[in-house]
């Protein structure tokens, strides 16, 4: 049975992106033009974003016999994912060109990864959810391994692949148990079964444990975080930049689809597990980050702690909590793009600006870049007037509103620990004397510089006027949950 045409129209962004990805692969094969592939990728993503806006509606629409759903939250996340991918590509253009990595293969993989995210975000079915996840993951494994003669890079890819495959296995096992309970792979049907009372509470809890373990791996939440620092550290910085940005939006959508669309009635069970994972992530992420001397590793550990905060929002199991978590995910992506974007930007041919010492005295030589980086760091630390503060505020508000005051206190305590290492970066840039040799190139890609500045100012402006983004996230989550 061929689905009706209207279903294909709803899925236009994905279809367009698939075509663009194929096109990007072909462009380089036939014309040898790397610039052409780059431009095609950027404009393809832009086109996808526009199509998302075109097809997006506040109402929830299903398509393809319940495999696919288009709702407000999905549309917003997809749009932001495309946007984040564009920014990541522009930031890394120079870096990739310097290292001979800019081309159809890299960009093609990146587009397929974005496609996987879009599918994940729009999944209403275990099958499409898993398909999207694997498309994303496989593309990322390959991207991490792009520099195959680099030992660290290969090691990171290996680790990522093995642990990722394990996580997928856990996830599939959990899903199969849920299928056994519900007799259907559709998230709606699963939710219905759980609501009316599962035939076996034990099987349900078992399934939840496996699903959450798989989720934890993909998110990078403790205690399933082991791969994250090594992968972030080992991967080429441009890839780290990409992994640290848009996929986090997809991971958030993944959590929402599975836990909220599919397993909301069993929230009493997953809430506790999420609480444990969240606190462990906050603790491990923040404490381990203090010891790092490599900024990529430091930001990797900080990612773990941010994922902990995101989970805290979800575990509140309230509308306020979900919208807080979404707001957190969006703002985190904005800050992460900036943080890793700066590392990419400051690296030049043969020099990776990835040690913290490389940033010594940045203010003396490049005051504006230092100011922008300081904004990202202070925002990640959750200090007002930057956007990161409001992300933390909404999560804490949801927590307190749901009666989890002690968790809010724990979260706040670890934020203090976190502030230390973010401040250390500011200290290195502003208080330390510059190193003898300037590791930072004098002239560099102008487009990336402008975009980085805009990114930094966005972090500040969204902090001074937080209303639009906050309400947008709250509105889209509210519309999607009906």
């Amino acid at each position, binding site marked *: 049975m061929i689905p009706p045409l209207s279903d294909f129209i709803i899925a236009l962004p994905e279809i367009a992106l698939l075509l663009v990805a194929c096109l990007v692969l072909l462009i380089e094969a036939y014309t040898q033009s790397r610039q052409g592939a780059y431009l095609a990728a950027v404009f393809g993503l832009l086109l996808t974003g526009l199509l998302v806006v075109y097809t997006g509606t506040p109402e929830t629409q299903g398509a393809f016999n319940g495999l696919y759903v288009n709702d407000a939250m999905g549309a917003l996340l997809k749009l932001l994912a495309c946007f984040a991918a564009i920014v990541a590509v522009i930031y890394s253009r120079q870096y990739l060109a310097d290292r001979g990595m800019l081309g159809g293969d890299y960009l093609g993989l990146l587009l397929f990864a974005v496609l996987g995210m879009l599918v994940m975000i729009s999944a209403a079915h275990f099958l499409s959810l898993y398909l999207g996840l694997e498309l994303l993951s496989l593309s990322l494994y390959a991207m991490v391994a792009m520099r195959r003669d680099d030992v660290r890079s290969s090691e990171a890819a290996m680790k990522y692949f093995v642990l990722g495959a394990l996580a997928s296995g856990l996830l599939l096992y959990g899903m199969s148990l849920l299928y056994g309970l519900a007799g259907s792979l559709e998230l709606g049907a699963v939710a219905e079964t759980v609501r009316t009372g599962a035939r076996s509470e034990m099987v349900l809890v078992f399934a939840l444990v496996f699903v959450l373990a798989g989720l934890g791996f993909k998110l990078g939440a403790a205690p399933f975080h082991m791969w994250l620092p090594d992968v972030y550290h080992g991967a080429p910085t441009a890839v780290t930049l990409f992994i640290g940005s848009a996929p986090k939006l997809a991971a958030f959508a993944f959590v929402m689809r599975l836990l909220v669309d599919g397993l909301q009635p069993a929230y009493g069970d997953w809430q506790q597990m999420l609480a444990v994972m969240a606190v462990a992530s906050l603790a491990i992420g923040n404490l381990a980050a203090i010891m790092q001397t490599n900024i990529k590793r430091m930001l990797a550990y900080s990612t773990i702690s941010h994922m902990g905060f995101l989970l805290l929002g979800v575990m509140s199991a309230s509308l306020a909590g979900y919208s807080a978590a979404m707001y957190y995910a969006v703002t985190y992506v904005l800050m992460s793009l900036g943080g890793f974007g700066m590392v990419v930007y400051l690296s030049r041919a043969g020099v990776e600006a990835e040690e913290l010492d490389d940033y010594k005295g940045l*203010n003396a030589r490049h*005051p504006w870049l230092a100011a922008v980086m300081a904004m990202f760091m*202070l925002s990640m630390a959750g*200090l*007002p*007037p930057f956007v990161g*503060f409001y992300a933390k*505020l*909404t999560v*804490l*508000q949801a927590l*307190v*509103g749901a009666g989890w*005051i002690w968790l*809010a*206190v724990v979260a*706040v*305590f670890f*934020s*203090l620990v976190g*502030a*230390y290492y973010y*401040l*250390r970066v*500011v*200290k290195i840039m*502003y*208080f330390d004397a510059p190193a003898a040799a300037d590791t930072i190139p004098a002239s560099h890609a102008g487009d990336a510089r402008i975009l980085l500045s805009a990114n930094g100012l966005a972090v500040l402006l969204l902090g001074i*006027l*937080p*209303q639009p983004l*906050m*309400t947008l996230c*709250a509105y889209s989550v509210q519309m999607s949950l009906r």
Partner: protein
Amino acid sequence: MLEGIGYLSLTIWVPIVAGILILVTGGDRNAAGQRALALLGAMLGFLVAVPLWTGFDSASAAMQFEEVGAWVPAFSIWYHLGVDGISMPFVLLNSFTTVLVVLAGWQVIQTRVAQYMAAFLIQSGLINAVFCALDGVLFYVFFEAMLIPLYLIIGMWGGPNRVYAAIKFFLYTLLGSLMMLVAIIYLFFVSGGSFEILEWHRVGLTMTAQMLLFVAFFFAFAVKVPMWPVHTWLPDAHVEAPTGGSVVLAAITLKVGAYGFLRFILPIVPDASHELTWLIVALSLVAVVYIGMVALVQSDMKKLIAYSSIAHMGFVTLGFMLFNPLGIEGGLIQMISHGFVSAALFLCIGVMYDRMHSRQIADYGGVVNTMPRFAALFMLFAMANAGLPGTSGFVGEFMVILGAVKVNFWWAAAAALTLIFGAAYTLWMYKRVIFGKVANEHVADLKDIDGREFLVLAILAVCVLAMGLYPMPVTDVMHASVNQLLEQVAQSKLVY
């Protein structure tokens, strides 16, 4: 109420915009212009604050110059500003101090001038906002944001151990304020979804809730004041900070902590405050007596004044916990007076440090022989610090002691020790630094203060004397608000 942009918004945003403009002017090549621009911005900032004083209705206890704007209405966060008799003087004090700080850094700061001046101006706007904010989140945003400029000031232009001091300062104060964040969110839910501070003044709370809120707010403000035993960041920060940083720190940021007691702790959790009066009084008296003795043995002038600040702030918190008009007004007067006196003392030390590059008392002696004009002014400020009648230092201390006698004689007796200790450490330092024979050839080479330095110190001297001789105008402004506060605190808010 004014239509459009009110004076309060101006006092906040004029310095901030001026600071950003200075940052845009680029590197040190334009230093002269940047200084002028900074002075202009600071003066403008002070000028727009003056109408707050002249247009203030001191008969009313209500919030004045109120401004309400939609900020994040979807989350019930409002841009709500207003001042009463308690907060208005501090907006003026802060705007005034900013002018002095800009003047004080005129010649001393030769590198990264734009960033230095901008940091102070932005900081000034942020602190004004802290005093004006009537929305909990708005308050919190500025309360934390004001840490960032001072962190940079200490870390970039400070002494040899500046990095340690800057980070210690930041983390210490952040610890306190994060606790407060949870308290603010809790109050939001208890008050039925409002971040209005004035609304929180009315909401009933159980004793357990009051105790926990008290602890959270107390952490935040006690660190800022700072009260013993969470004061240890202050001497470090003061010693390492550049002169301007020390002045702002002592004159203004410490006051934010004490202000928090009056705006948050006393009216929001009155029952817990009554219950825990003994604790705060005990900590305050420890600060007055023990820290006074600690100050006595310091060999570093800046450290000595830093400890003396802690002792004086102990007086302020003691006054607040007496729950009578004399105590609270005395505390407020003491805060303003300390704003002038400590600023002046740090400036005096700065004057000597700029010439000798030493803060050690032992390196000085006989300065009066080479710097007579300076010695005279320094004398006045030292006397004010010791609480000599006729100077502003005396008024506040005397009022607090009078208030304390009404409550408990022994508290008053212990507090009165400060008159002895204060005189001892200040005057002993003064004697060793200024009097005696010229100690070494460096002192012999000293040049007396120039016109700019004289101007700054003379303005402060006038303020100190005016407040000391005729404090009426200042207390008049406060009366109504303080009385209303006391009424609020006297009523129990307990719910069961």
